[in-house]
């Protein structure tokens, strides 16, 4: 009778061990799948991620000769990629690599090269921290979660 009880108890212990082991095994397996998935996930690739658009407003009349001179001077500044100057409005918009030079540095170098009457276009306060449409909502849980995971592994 006593032996029967011991055998029964051992059987229950064995069942509990098998269940616990299975749950642990599944958990470890799922965790490994998660780690492999995160580690091999490719970060979002952005063409020319450091390319910035900036603008300079000229406050003097610009003719075609002056426009060519501005273009030449702009091309001498490291980091400037492409530019477009509207002669009628005196607005210059250009793309530059922000890792090489920011808009203030480029503006200062251009003015040093040509002594132009011009102003750097600066965004009014309140607009500068916003991002433009259409990207993922930064307040959302999915955005914060994926940013957190990406920061760990990338």
């Amino acid at each position, binding site marked *: 009778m006593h032996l029967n009880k011991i055998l029964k108890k051992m059987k229950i212990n064995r069942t509990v061990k098998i269940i616990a082991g299975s749950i642990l095994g599944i958990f470890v397996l799922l965790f490994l799948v998660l780690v492999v998935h995160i580690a091999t996930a490719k970060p979002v690739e952005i*063409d020319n991620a*450091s390319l*910035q658009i900036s603008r300079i407003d000229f406050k003097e009349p610009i003719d075609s000769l002056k426009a060519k001179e501005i273009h030449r001077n702009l091309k001498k500044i490291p980091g400037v990629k492409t530019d*477009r100057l509207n002669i009628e409005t005196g607005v210059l918009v250009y793309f530059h690599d922000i890792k090489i030079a920011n808009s203030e540095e480029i503006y200062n170098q251009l003015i040093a090269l040509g002594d132009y009457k011009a102003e750097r276009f600066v965004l009014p306060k309140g607009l500068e921290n*916003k991002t*433009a449409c*259409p990207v993922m909502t930064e307040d959302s849980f999915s955005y914060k979660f994926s940013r957190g995971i990406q920061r760990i592994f990338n």
Partner: protein
Amino acid sequence: MKNFSKLALVALFIASGAFVTSCNDDDDKAAEPASLYAKLGGTTMVADPNNPSQMIEQGRLSYRSVVDSTITLIVADIVTGAEGNLGAHFAPIVSEVSSGNATNVSILSKNLTDFFSANTGGGATNVYTGLDMVAAHDPAQNPRMGVKSTDADYDKFIGYVGAAAGLNGVTDPQLINEVVAVLESLRAPIVQE
């Protein structure tokens, strides 16, 4: 009777073979017109002019060039505090505040390029992962939208795209009409005012 059964069986076999062949969609595929993505250069790899060490599909590069020129033209027309120049939607890209490792303008350029490439025949190699068009242009769902777009805003945007296409050598009226048709198909979800 036995011979008749054999003949019937052979006839049935040939007929079913002919039926299967006629249902094959290879002919339909061959007759399919080229997609807009293919007409703009398709999957031919070329050097990226912004980064010559990288390669890029010509179709994607065509879209990206037009997108970047469109952004350039819009930024050139922004008048601080004035209405009707798309400043409320696009001014933030001039800011040098970046999102992670990418500038705001590079993210916008990527999103627009992905969207147009993936939806005009370049879906095999381009994927758009942003918000759907209704959500992306609704300030209640997308706080960065600023204000809702009007028909006049959208007309102006299409005008900018047309001018940008011209600046990039896309002057074939038929091709421009196809681009405009794509943009017009998006008017309903984007214009919400």
